[in-house]
């Protein structure tokens, strides 16, 4: 034992104190730095002679609760997802307007029916006619505006995905880069702590974009995977995400697993080994902002568009479609003759028959002239009913052969040409009896002698609901619907439905028909609107459909808002919990500071005592 060893021990104490002081000052200085994790000094005692031991600074420790951190990252993804959904659905609510005020679909619709009702009271009056047309135009424009609102939100989602993908790439690259730097550093190196803070920040950023899992191995290399297992960062190598953003989306821009048919962007992940994975098709991203954007762009907002499209289509068809019964053929075999000449693509020919057990079946034959669209899905709600598509472009002989092939055998019906008419009779096996045959056609002229008229058109074309290989006419109809230009040029056709003899001015047949169709006639709505199911489609009047889908949207927005709020609470609580451990607590730091101050003074005192002892020793020798 020697005084000099005491001195050197005190000296090591002073060094350790200085190091600790620099950590405290670092903690205090970084109290507001995002992602900064409070550090503590790691020190150890060292033997510096026969007795007593000095102190050695080993490095720094980050005060981190990794369990909370990983939980926080999971919830971060969920929170970002919920926030994005809630925010966009909130914006969608703005598209629907303020209840009870103009600029809403319901107000435009109610104005239209009121104007029609007024026309019934003063039919033939030009002012009443033009107010009906104005109201119809306002309704069409409201549908157009709603469509453009929805499509703007979809385009925003597309843009947001593009931005998110860029951010994700930046974060992934940074993680790989930091992994590389950390390779040569020990975990307790003060420089490593800073790098790890940066790496955690990058991972946190990534966790908001998508659902990820981060794994740090023994060599302090962090690999990042999506929860579905696709590797985003593997040690020093990062995958690359790419997104082919489309500038602006329309209702017909739809995602498709087949890249040739898809007209919106998709996210491709290129792994370091060169393999490519379609992240949307493989459903690799299930949470986070990107998943929310995909959900909004391809499902939620598409459904909102389907709702207004369905509304526009029903509105157009309800006023323009007429069902014409066939003429009975007395047998045997008995059946009906039907004129197919007015059946346009999308219109249908319908047969009802009863089988041997007296169960009624109905077959709806939709005219589908595009062979690539055939066969069409059987959308009939009742299992006894069938919907098939038939190409009418080949003429009656071709229709007859298609019908006999497709349904003749199973339904025990025989189709044949009877002049220019289609004859539908039973096949003589007594297995079926034809009870009715009719066509549902779209009236093309404004004065056909029938109260129906094509009041709304698909731009300049007639809306018939045609189905082609690429799209159905219904898709995006709400964005294209307009009031028939011919009717705008001749508003008197709102009353005059016959030209010879000319409908008298006081005849309210047409306006009454229009009013009835809009207020009390019931229709069936496609399940892709989110209302009803394939087996039990939603049926109701147009106002009730409007009410239903607006209610569904508003409750979806409310629910999303509540979910987002709940998620925020979870995220905030976890963040708080995380901060309690990892954050810098000034009080703690000040306490440490006082302790260090005292310790420094004590060490210094030890030195001064050693010095005085040395002094004493030297003086004694003298």
């Amino acid at each position, binding site marked *: 034992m020697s005084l000099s060893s005491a001195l050197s021990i005190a000296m090591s104490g002073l060094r350790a104190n200085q190091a600790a002081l620099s950590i405290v000052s670092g903690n205090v200085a970084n*109290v*507001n730095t*995002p992602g900064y994790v409070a550090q503590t000094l790691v020190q150890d005692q060292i033997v510096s002679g026969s007795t007593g031991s000095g102190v050695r600074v080993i490095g720094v420790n980050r005060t981190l609760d990794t369990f909370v951190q990983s939980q926080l990252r999971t919830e*971060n993804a969920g*929170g970002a997802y919920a*926030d994005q959904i809630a925010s966009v*659905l*909130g914006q969608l*609510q*703005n598209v*629907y307007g*303020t*209840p*009870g005020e103009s600029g809403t679909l*319901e107000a435009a619709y*109610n*104005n239209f*029916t*009121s104007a029609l*009702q*007024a026309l*019934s*009271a*003063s*039919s*033939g*009056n030009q002012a009443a006619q033009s107010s009906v047309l104005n109201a119809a135009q306002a309704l069409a424009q409201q549908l157009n505006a709603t469509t453009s609102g929805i499509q703007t939100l979809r385009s925003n989602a597309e843009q947001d995905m593009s931005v998110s993908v860029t951010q994700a790439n930046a974060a992934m690259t940074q993680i790989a880069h930091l992994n590389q730097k950390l390779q040569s550093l020990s975990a307790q190196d003060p420089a490593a702590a800073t790098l790890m803070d940066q790496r955690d920040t990058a991972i946190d950023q990534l966790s908001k974009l998508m659902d990820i899992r981060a794994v740090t191995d023994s060599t302090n290399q962090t690999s990042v995977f999506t929860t579905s297992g696709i590797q985003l960062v593997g040690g020093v190598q990062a995958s690359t995400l790419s997104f082919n953003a489309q500038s602006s989306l329309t209702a017909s821009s739809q995602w498709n697993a087949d890249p040739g048919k898809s007209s919106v962007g998709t996210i491709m992940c290129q792994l370091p080994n060169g393999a490519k994975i379609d992240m949307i098709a493989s459903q690799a991203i299930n949470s986070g902002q990107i998943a929310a954007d995909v959900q909004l762009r391809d499902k939620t907002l598409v459904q909102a568009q389907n709702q207004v499209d369905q509304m526009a289509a029903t509105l157009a068809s309800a006023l323009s479609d007429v069902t014409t019964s066939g003429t009975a053929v007395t047998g045997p075999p008995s059946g009906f003759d039907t004129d197919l000449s007015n059946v346009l693509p999308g219109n249908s020919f319908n047969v009802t028959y009863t089988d041997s057990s007296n169960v009624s079946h109905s077959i709806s034959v939709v005219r589908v002239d595009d062979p690539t669209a055939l066969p069409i899905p059987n959308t009939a709600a009742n299992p006894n009913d069938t919907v098939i598509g038939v190409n009418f472009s080949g003429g009656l002989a071709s229709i007859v052969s298609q019908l006999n092939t497709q349904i003749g055998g199973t339904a025990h019906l025989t189709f044949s040409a009877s002049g220019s008419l289609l004859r539908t009779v039973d096949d003589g096996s007594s297995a079926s009896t034809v009870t009715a045959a009719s066509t549902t056609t779209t009236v093309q002229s404004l004065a056909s002698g029938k109260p129906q008229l094509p009041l709304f058109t698909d731009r300049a074309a007639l809306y018939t609901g045609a189905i082609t290989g690429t799209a159905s006419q219904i898709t995006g109809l709400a964005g294209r619907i307009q009031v028939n230009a011919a009717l705008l040029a001749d508003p008197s056709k709102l009353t005059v439905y016959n030209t010879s003899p000319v409908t*008298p*001015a*006081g*005849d*309210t047949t047409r306006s*009454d028909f229009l009013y009835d169709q809009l*207020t*009390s006639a019931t229709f069936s709505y496609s399940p892709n609107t989110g209302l009803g199911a394939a087996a039990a489609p939603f049926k109701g009047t147009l*106002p*009730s459909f*409007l*009410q*239903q889908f*607006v*209610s569904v*949207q*508003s*409750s979806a*927005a*409310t629910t999303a*808002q509540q979910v987002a709020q709940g998620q*925020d609470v979870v*995220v*905030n*609580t976890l*963040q*708080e919990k995380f*901060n309690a451990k990892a*954050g810098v607590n*000034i*009080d703690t730091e*000040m*306490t440490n500071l006082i302790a260090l101050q005292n310790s420094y003074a004590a060490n210094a005192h030890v030195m001064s005592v050693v010095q005085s002892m040395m002094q004493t020793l030297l003086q004694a020798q003298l």
Partner: protein
Amino acid sequence: MAINGISFGNTILGGSIQSLKAQMADLQNQLTSGKKSTTYSGMGANEGFAIAARSQLSNIAAFTDTMTKITTNIEVANTSLQALANIGTQLQTAANSGSQALNSAGQTAGQQTAVAEFSSMVGILNTRAGDRYVFSGSAIYTQPVASSDLILDGNGAGQAGLKQVISERNQADLGSSGLGRVTIASPTATSVSIAEDASPSVYGMKLSNVTSSLTGATVTNTAATVNLASNPSDGDTFNFAFLQSDGTSQTVQLTATTTLPPPTGSFAIGASAAATATNLNAALTTAEATASPYGAQLTGVSSSAAGVTLTPAQASVDLGATNPVDGDQVSFTFSLPDGTTESVQLTASSETPTPAGSFAIGATPTATAANLNAALTNSIGTLAKTSLVAASAIRAAHDFFDSPPQRVDVTPPATLATATGAVNGTPANTVQWYTGDAGTGSARATSTVRVDPSVTVQYGMRANEDAIRSLVESAAVLAAVTTSPTDPNGAGQVSSLNARIAQNLSATPGRQNIQNVQSDLANAQTVMKDATARQKLTQATLQNIVDQAETVSTDQVASQLLALQTDLQASYQTTSMLSQLSLVKFLPLG
């Protein structure tokens, strides 16, 4: 939104404060707008009901507007109908009690009033409620009735007016002999016969009956009979058209059959053409009696068999070998074109000079028959120039106001005096008095409007409805007929015209009158009143639903605001205190 800033070192506290501030802003919005929110989602769970309720409210508002409009229309119509009814009463008074003094234009004072009233009737029938003609049926933008001058006088360029139609009919009804298209003859020295000049014919007087109390005389009354040139075969059909007194036409079809006994609507084919004709005539008499018990005129015959002719109806009185005694009477009854009947009654008299309405009993039945012939010719001539003229004018007016108007068919060789048939007047040759909607359905149904989802009211009217048309006809006849002041039969004409007009203007059970139309409209008003009352109730309920779903109570929001303010103040205070609680504050500076 998660708070990641650490300015207070406490994200939960910061989050809560933000949330409180957001709530505060929301409540302030609610307080100023009175509404829960500006979006559907913000309105809460009952917003669906509010949307449905608003749609119904909008319908009710539209119905209310409609009813206001329709009520105005009905009130205008009612005023017009009342004015028409008043004119009818005035005309009746004029016809009943008017003086028969004729002015220089050949009209009585009552007729001159009728000219003015006819003109005002036309004006009333052309009434508009707003932009629509009330009496046009469904042709609401077409003036329903031509001007009164045009109706009465025509336009001088081929379109005949009422006056011309009356004049033509007058000539056709009177015939060239002025005896009302009957011929008087003496088939034997002691008999007098009277026969219609043609059959079928729509013009002139029609023999209806003859009765006699003449001592020793034989009276025969033969209806029009069908003659067959050859025996028809089984299944041949014979169609007989009858013009009835109300102007409608009815067709009776009889079929030749070999079935015995012949079923209804058929007659047996006999051994010869004559025997079959007897059967046919018997069947026709029966059919005629059921088809039109009174006043029908046979106006047409068509058959699938050839050679069918008609022998006109005739009646004869054969005095035989004995002279009638004083006071014996013979009476001939005629149907006139307007459906009325008139009788010519002659009394055998030995007074000198022979009084009016009598014939002198001569020395022998032959001389008496000659006297009877002369007296009959004279009386029928007078009847033709008085009652027949009036009846003809009324009938002509009825035909003129028919749709299409009926004119005398003067296709050569027929002339006005020998015409037997009527022909439809065309717009080119006859004034069309009614130009509104002429559909066959109910006039009320021409204007139908919905006043409730399931209730419609009908309030249409046509100027050619029976009630209005008969009123117009009466006024028009009075206005159109002129009588020569020098005509010895003038007074008779005027009085029979007045009597007929007065009769036609009085209410007849089973015939529509103005009051019927008014009560139809009153029903429509009652229906609307009920609908309004119902809708008011519904409206209140629906408004309540909307208010409950969308509006906020000011008191509630104000108290919530106060509570929130307290919370927010407390939070600020706490935050401020927390920010002071740091060891740094308590460390000595040196």
